[in-house]
């Protein structure tokens, strides 16, 4: 009981700490003096001078999008080159070889889109050079791009008749300089103090009792893992993610890492309210997130604790499902980590997703297909939730007899087209690719399991790629041409259909006037609106996946209880 309470306490404390940090973030992106200004402002100004950036000139949303896309494209090319050439580049003490082209394309795009699709094992396949430069791309650049996008959207709500949305270079510089670098430097210490590995040594060679030889991997793990946690990449320095004792050595690191996963997304929610000058928005976003967070909990707890009835028949004691789980942790800790790690599309885990119960995987898929709005991937999660807000407000506004307005901005044709397109693209990218792969012989060949379980594996892989989560179930052979080449379109479509749509919406919101609050204004923080948003999340997004879930995890669950597994 104490342990359970401690976990909830960690979550509550994290959410409380998110408030002061969120206020700090808002100051950073408004360009107001903040705690770090004396230290970082000269550096910031120096960067602008060297790069020839006029920090006071702003861009239209189109220019902002063009700059962002151009920048991300360069990132992909850069990451592709590193991975393709890592075999001949320096800082490669244990002599790993270069990536095959399809593998490099996949990994480069997954880095840049903040998916961190781990089609490789970090400890086995990456040189120190690639780990570090990869980190540069995936842990500074890609989360910063997500970050600036949500900054732009939030800020647009407080603008009036304004043709511009901000300056990409300024926002981006601030994200890296004021957010990621200080945060990583501070938050890494608790990890290192607990013994998370941090060195530049070649892998240690151990001679086992049986006379075998084992490579013990090392490297600058802590500094990389910290970013993989706070940037919602999913910790994967070591192949076993947070189940690995070098990544997650003690119960304290287990708590810290969970807190880290939630901290930045929660702070972003606070920041949104400050930038939009609407405390209600923060309240509403938090409420919807918490409601969904609580709604997804019961099913995994029920499924995992109920366990596999087949094992029970074979006489296995207790029957709880401990397959694929790290024995250091209790069942409760596993389930909490699954929910906390997967809800914000982070992907860090202490369990093997391929071995969890079908209803648990159903819950995970649910969290993923609704756009991971529960705290959410940096930028994308809250943005997806704002897209839901737009659609909900449109219908709710009509029901109260007026053209709807969200946070003082009228919701009109343009916003509906954009938000609708975002939903259309994300269901298109995950459902269509899963369907295409599953009918192809190549797709069937990479599938490790048959029946509904195989369908679940495939569906999970593509929905996870679409939402830039990056997890997949172990049964799928991901380093194959078909998966390497079919997932990048999902990652691109999933990420940019959310981010770019968000910036486009920001463009039109900034141009609009502000509607004064009146008795007819439907406050976003009202419980009714929260309920309506949750309703829309279920009916518009989740229901689209109900047919495939029926013959995937649901069928698997029903077959399992009647005695068949896959």
């Amino acid at each position, binding site marked *: 009981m104490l342990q359970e309470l401690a976990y909830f306490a960690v979550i509550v404390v994290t959410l409380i700490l998110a408030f002061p940090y969120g206020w700090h973030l808002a100051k950073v992106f408004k360009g107001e003096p903040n705690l770090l200004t004396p230290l970082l402002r000269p550096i910031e100004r120096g960067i602008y001078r060297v790069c020839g950036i006029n920090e006071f000139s702003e861009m239209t949303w189109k220019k902002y999008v063009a700059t962002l896309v151009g920048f991300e494209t360069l990132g992909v090319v850069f990451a592709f080159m590193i991975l393709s050439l890592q075999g001949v580049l320096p800082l490669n003490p244990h002599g790993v070889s270069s990536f095959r082209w399809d593998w490099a394309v996949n990994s480069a795009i997954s880095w840049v889109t903040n998916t961190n699709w781990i089609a490789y094992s970090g400890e086995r396949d990456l040189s120190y050079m690639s780990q570090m430069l990869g980190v540069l791309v995936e842990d500074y650049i890609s989360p910063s791009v997500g970050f600036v996008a949500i900054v732009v959207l939030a800020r647009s709500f407080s603008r009036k008749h304004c043709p511009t949305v901000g300056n990409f270079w300024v926002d981006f510089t601030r994200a890296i300089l004021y957010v990621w670098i200080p945060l990583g430097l501070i938050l890494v210490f608790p990890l290192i103090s607990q013994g998370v590995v941090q060195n530049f040594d070649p892998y240690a060679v151990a001679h086992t009792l049986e006379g075998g030889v084992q490579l013990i991997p090392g490297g600058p793990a802590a500094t990389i893992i910290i970013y993989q946690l706070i940037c919602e990449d999913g910790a994967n320095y070591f192949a076993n993610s947070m189940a690995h004792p070098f990544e997650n050595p003690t119960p304290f690191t287990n708590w810290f890492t969970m807190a880290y996963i939630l901290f930045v997304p929660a702070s972003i929610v606070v920041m949104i309210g400050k930038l939009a000058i609407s405390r209600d928005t923060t309240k509403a976003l938090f409420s919807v997130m918490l409601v969904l967070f609580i709604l997804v909990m019961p099913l995994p707890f029920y499924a995992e604790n109920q366990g596999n009835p087949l094992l029970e028949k074979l006489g296995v004691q207790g029957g709880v499902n401990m397959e694929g789980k790290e024995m250091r942790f209790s069942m409760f800790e596993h389930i909490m980590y699954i929910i906390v790690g997967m809800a914000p599309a982070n992907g860090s885990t202490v369990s093997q997703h391929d071995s969890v119960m079908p209803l648990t995987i159903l819950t995970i898929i649910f969290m993923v297909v609704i756009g991971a709005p529960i705290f959410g991937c940096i930028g994308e999660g809250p943005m997806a939730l704002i897209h839901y807000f737009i659609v909900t407000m449109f219908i709710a506004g009509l029901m109260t007899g007026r053209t709807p307005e969200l946070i003082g901005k009228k919701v009109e044709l343009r916003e*509906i087209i954009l938000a609708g397109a975002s939903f259309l693209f994300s269901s298109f990218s995950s459902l269509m690719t899963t369907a295409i792969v599953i009918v192809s012989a190549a797709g069937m060949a990479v599938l490790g399991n048959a029946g509904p379980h195989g369908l679940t594996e495939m569906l999970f892989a593509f929905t996870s790629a679409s939402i830039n989560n990056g997890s997949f179930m172990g049964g799928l052979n991901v380093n194959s041409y078909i998966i390497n080449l079919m997932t990048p379109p999902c990652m691109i479509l999933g990420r940019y259909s959310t981010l770019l749509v968000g910036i486009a919406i920001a463009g039109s919101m900034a141009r609009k006037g502000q509607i004064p609050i009146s008795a007819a204004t439907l406050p976003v923080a009202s419980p009714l609106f929260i309920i309506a948003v949750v309703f829309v999340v279920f009916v518009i997004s989740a229901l689209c996946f109900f047919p495939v879930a029926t013959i995937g995890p649901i069928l698997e669950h029903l077959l399992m209880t009647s005695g068949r597994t896959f």
Partner: protein
Amino acid sequence: MRGKTTKLLESDIVGQAVKDAFLKLDPRVQWRNLVMFVVEIGAFLTTLNALGDVLTGGNFKFDIQIGIWLWFTVLFANFSEALAEGRGKAQAESLRLARSEAMANRQLHDGSIEQIPALDLRKGDLYVVNNGEIIPGDGEVIEGTALVDESAVTGESAPVVREPGSTLRGVTGGTKVISGKITVKVTVDPGETFLDQMISMVENAKRQKTPNERALEILLIGMTAIFIIVVVTLVPFANYVGVSISLVVLVSLLVCLIPTTIGGLLPAIGIAGMERLLQNNVIALSGRGVEASGNVDLVLMDKTGTITLGNRMATEFIPAPGVSIEEIARAAMLSSLADDTPEGRSIVELCKQVLGIRGRDIRPKEGSTFVPFSPISSMSGINIDGVQIRKGSAESMDNLIKSVGLSTPDEVNAAVDRIAREGGTPLVVVEGIKVLGAIRLKDVIKEGIRERLNNMRKLGIRFVMITGDNPVTAAAIAAEAGIDDFMAQARPAFKLDAIRRYQKDGHMVAMIGDGTNDAPALAQADLAVAMNAGTQAAREAANMIDLDSNPAKLLDIVEIGKQLLMTRGALTTFSVANDVSKYFAILPAIFATSYPQLEVLNIMGLATPASAVLSAVIFNALIIPALIPLAIKGVSYRAATTESLLRYNLVVYGLGGLIIPFIGIKLVDILVVLLHLE
């Protein structure tokens, strides 16, 4: 006058609507409603499939039934639209016929006069207006001289002289000739064409979709596209687990999931909104205006005619010290006998009450002379036996008294101040050199206006009163009527500035106007209603015309606009919520044969896979005609706070939309089994 209310199902309208429902199946027409176009394609494919079954001797019973019901789905949707169109047109026609009360005396070339409806006047026609008649249309006086009361248009109560050849030759429709007879040449076509414009707006082909309707339509199309992806990808997924789904079942699933209920009824809702306006004798010149009316959050209202009855009424005499009430009443009556303004008449009425006089024709003594009101002296009166009796504004009377070296008694001045403070207009009566006392002229607030404004305020609408009165009077009237804000001593040009200022602050502004000087403000307002009795310029600048020229109509228009949007929102919620039940009907039907475990999803306990699919499709089709009355009459509307409106609609249409189809599909399934249709 309220327009004729058309019964929901009038046989000739229904007959035409049934015919039109089939005509609209023409793909070139049907594609305008994309959601239903998708259903039509589905119906077509299903029919082809059924025909194939017939030819190959397969089991065609199921396929044919599904095909028929899909066609019915499209036809029901088309019927709802055609019915709304038919009713709108019928309403417009009946209005056209009813426009007979405004008549004009047209002068023909031979000099003879014929009576025609005012709306039939054309540019260049000549008409004659006699004493006491309303001027039927805008024009120029070419013969005769008349005193014209233009207060309905300009708000100025003093009558003006209109005669040919001068700058005063223009007359305005809706104004009234108080005395004289003039012949007028029509300069602009009156608004008959507005009705034609209205009729064209309810016709499918020419109908312009409004911005909000288009946004909703886009959302529905987006959802349709998502469901097409869902259904198409289900084929390979099902194949993977060893289930093949027939085309007919796939089409059924798709049609059940896409928002056919709202998609089918959407056009009817918009047309019916315009028809409800017509029932209130309001002609909408653009659908945009109808929609904007729901969004209005600030209403500029002229005091006169909207909040108060047009004219002030004398309600009290306050005699000076030493003067009896009879004395002042007698003097006031004499001074007002020749004053034909409403105020003058109301003073006479009050005097009769006070003095207990009956009888219609009260004449002053022979040899008396009347002094008519002039704006310069701002007084009127009578001279009897060399005694001047005058009544007028406190200021003018004070000047009159001062001119003979006297001053108004303090008590009278105090009474004058009090009357003004309480929102009335004080008049002072003087006989010879003696101040007899003050008359209270009071603006009479329209009955029920306060409650009405209060209800509207719950919906978040603010009201600003515009008046030429001084701020003190304006504040008193505003307080009495429950108005939020007022603009006192306003000149017509103020309105435009005010609207711009409010719009800049993000308000949606409505106003009602009639005069030419209102035209710029009307053009600027988001919802602009012109009175039909107003000037041509005002009518052209507005987006709605009120045939009754009743300024309070603005409130009805706002309510209709809100009801229109609420109906759209409610039916969308209902339609989307329906999807849940359809999954539970069709998915077990598809998969439970191969995987009996999935039978647990068949929570309705539908008899067979065939009956389940058929029931879902039949329910989906029948819900459209079942909701036609709601679409055409609009959801029940009440003034309530935003949250309570949302709560009510979420429960009724959201929760109801979740639950009702479960019951409905089950009932249809029982029938299907009973009739052996499966």
